[in-house]
């Protein structure tokens, strides 16, 4: 069967009443849990897993996939409205999205996020359908050395994220790397910086860190300045995008889609790089880069597109190799295995209904999310007009439930509180939390890949320049580093000449 025939078959499966219904249920549940801070798709899908035992495999996986995308959309909503990132990808959305909300453009930010996600999801779905199996070889050609160089490139470019002092931003990246190293060392099994606390042996939780440093710290700061709270109550402006905003966002969406589609394919942490990558790119190439940090729509459109494209293409390693690229995917593999289906290269032939039905329902799910989300923007924005004294206790309660539900452990709640205090201190010192989170996410992955590459090469560092992918990444990284340092060097030289 050719691609069109396959897609037609997929739509035939996905558009059956039952599958359509469960795609809708999944999208609705996903949106709901995405909006509740901290309650992620992992907790939800594991709760709902027993329900899928009795469903046909295709229906089950369509519903779970719906929850996954729905949570991505919902997560952006809290990031924009409340500065509460629930996932790595929505950290970037808080940077410009929350500022847009404070400027009275919450509706536009939400609409941008929904439309950008939809567009990127559509493109990425076509990529998955058209060349999924082919792209697997790309994913497999990335070895540990290549991943290391890719992460290094990401970390170096992340200095771009600095909104104020570069020095402060770099120290936050380094601090983030240090926090990321807490836990059990993968190579030796030794505990590092855990102080004998068993809960720390798997590292500091991302949600505790992000929710504390962004969301809860923001609440504390808002409560401190009464005038800041009233900002949230200012007029919300037009709910939809102005023509000018639409024109500004379009190229960013296109670039973000390309970045996300490519990075999502890599199972070793590519998806978590996608929204950072897109944000950095926008800050460098967009026409309005001077507006970044004040609520630039490009900074919402690009990363949101990248994030959703990556969420879509990260299905490629799952569907073609049978290897989950994150915890949600691991649960989906579990759901399939319980049904007696092993995801992997033979699934395309052995289970065409499932494979093509899932791909088509990805797109249908995106349409549904657009339909669910666009009309709800008005409602979400009204949420900001709820008096803050009612809003903030509710947010705190949900944050509390959310951080508890990750490991069903109170320890994570304490960690969230600790990071909230730390977040307030950082804010007072004008230290940005975003670079810290990048260091936190990329640092440990970089270390793991570096040491594995060295272990496999028996300690020969030449492996990083001998492999073409790795060498290319390192070359780009050095160019970026030089480009960043040159202006300051030249400035110094000119000053010296003048003096």
């Amino acid at each position, binding site marked *: 069967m050719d691609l069109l025939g396959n897609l037609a078959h997929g739509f035939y499966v996905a558009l059956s009443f039952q599958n359509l219904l469960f795609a809708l249920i999944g999208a609705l549940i996903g949106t709901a849990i995405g909006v509740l801070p901290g309650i992620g798709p*992992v907790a939800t*899908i*594991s709760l709902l*897993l*027993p329900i899928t*035992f009795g469903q046909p495999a295709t229906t089950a996986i369509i519903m779970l996939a719906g929850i996954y995308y729905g949570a991505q959309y919902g997560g952006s909503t809290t990031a924009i409205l409340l500065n509460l990132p629930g996932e790595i990808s929505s950290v970037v959305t808080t940077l410009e999205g929350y500022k847009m909300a404070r400027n009275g453009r919450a509706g536009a930010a939400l609409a941008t996020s929904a439309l950008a996600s939809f567009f990127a999801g559509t493109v990425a779905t076509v990529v998955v359908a058209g060349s999924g199996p082919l792209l697997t070889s790309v*994913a*497999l*050609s*990335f*070895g*540990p050395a290549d991943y290391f160089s890719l992460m290094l490139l990401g970390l170096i470019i992340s200095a771009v994220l600095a909104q104020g002092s570069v020095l402060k931003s770099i120290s936050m990246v380094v601090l983030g790397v240090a926090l990321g190293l807490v836990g*059990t*060392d*993968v*190579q*030796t*099994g*030794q*505990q590092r910086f855990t102080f*004998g606390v*068993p*809960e720390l*042996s*798997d590292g500091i939780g991302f949600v505790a860190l992000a929710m504390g440093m962004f969301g809860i710290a923001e609440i504390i700061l808002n409560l401190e300045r009464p005038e800041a709270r009233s900002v949230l109550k200012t007029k919300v402006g037009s709910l939809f995008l102005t023509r000018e905003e639409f024109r500004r966002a379009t190229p960013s969406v296109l670039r973000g889609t390309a970045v996300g589609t490519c990075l999502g394919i890599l*199972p*070793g942490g590519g998806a978590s790089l996608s929204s950072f990558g897109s944000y950095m790119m926008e800050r460098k190439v967009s026409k309005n880069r001077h507006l970044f940090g004040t609520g630039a729509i490009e900074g919402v459109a690009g990363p949101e597109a990248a994030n959703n494209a990556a969420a879509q293409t990260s299905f490629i*390693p799952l569907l073609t*190799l*049978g*290897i*989950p690229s994150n*915890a949600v995917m*691991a*649960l*989906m*593999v*579990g759901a399939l*295995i*319980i049904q*007696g289906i*092993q*995801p*992997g*290269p*033979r699934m395309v032939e052995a289970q065409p209904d499932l494979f093509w039905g899932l791909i088509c329902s990805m797109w249908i799910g995106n349409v549904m999310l657009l339909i669910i989300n666009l009309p709800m923007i008005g409602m979400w924005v009204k949420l900001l007009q709820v008096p803050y004294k009612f809003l903030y206790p509710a947010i705190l309660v949900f944050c509390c439930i959310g951080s508890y539900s990750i*490991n*069903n*452990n109170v320890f994570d709640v304490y960690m969230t509180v600790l990071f909230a205090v730390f977040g307030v201190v950082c804010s007072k010192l004008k230290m940005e939390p975003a670079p810290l989170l990048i260091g936190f996410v990329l640092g440990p992955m970089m270390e*793991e890949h570096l040491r*594995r590459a060295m*272990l*496999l090469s*028996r300690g020969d560092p030449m492996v990083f320049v001998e492999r073409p992918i790795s060498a290319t990444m390192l070359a780009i990284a050095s160019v970026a580093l030089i480009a960043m340092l040159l202006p300051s060097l030249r400035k110094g030289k000119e000053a010296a000449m003048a003096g």
Partner: protein
Amino acid sequence: MLSRRALLAGGAAVAALPVDARAQDLSAAASSGVAAWPTQPIRLVVPFAPGGTTDLVARMLAQGLQDRLGQPFIIENRPGAGATVGSQQVAQAAPDCHTLLMSNIASHGIAPTLYRTLRYDAVKDFTHVALVVSNPSVFVANPRFAGPTLADVARLSREAPRGIDIASSGSGSSNHLLIVQFGQAANARVNHVPYRGAGPAMTDVIAGVVPLMSDSLPSAAGHIRQGSVRAVAMASAERHPAFPEVPTFREQGIDLVSDSWFGLSGPAGMPPAVVQRLSQSTLAVLAEPGLRIRFTELGGTPGALSPSGYTEFVRAEVARWAPVVRASGAEVG
């Protein structure tokens, strides 16, 4: 609402039991002081993240126990520190028989030696109820790897200037320990390459970054069936029914058997009557043909041990792994 449902369920259960069985049950309940257990939903703590083998096994078991005991079984994933975080929480729970644990080789076989500061005793601090499933480890190779047998692997490892790379799902895992045992038994020069879980390790084996991997059969089964990796040797006593074509370590002249296992346990001091009832229900669930087929497909063998049998089993496992863990050099502070 709740009381009505409980009444209905209770009524149905009582009606279904023959008279003498009911009398027996009541007298047992009266003597032990646990009238009509279970009276409320039961928490089954899975000390691993959702989606893994333990989680899947627990969910299938929970479904069966729920149907037999008339109370919902709620799976609670409490991952962390090689399954010791969740295990410790259950060890400290009240023995009211409404908190149970998926005990397993990591937390109850290896951790007692691996972790210097473990805060529970794998035998004394628990009431062990039943062995649920055990599954062998298996050596798999990239299909292009030129060594079809263990003897080839050992020979190639001695010929290579710096030994041969073998991946595992993590340092201190039973799969890692099998690599250590293999190196000793076959006089092979192995270079252990640990990963953060089986998924990333399998990716690198399929990609050919690492030629070999020691994996648990459930996570490797699908990849073996699909031909993306080749099974070299199964670390079971006999050939596995789901993979009769894969020779064992013993057949290839290396006397190694390595099973990872999961069981049902609770805090120490659970009343014997409840333990008995739970054990019988578990064995009945494990005897269901549908479940047996699923477990076998996954690569596991359903367990059939009494509470005392499982307790002895755990004790023997702790003793068995202690020297291997020490030989591996792995230790967690």
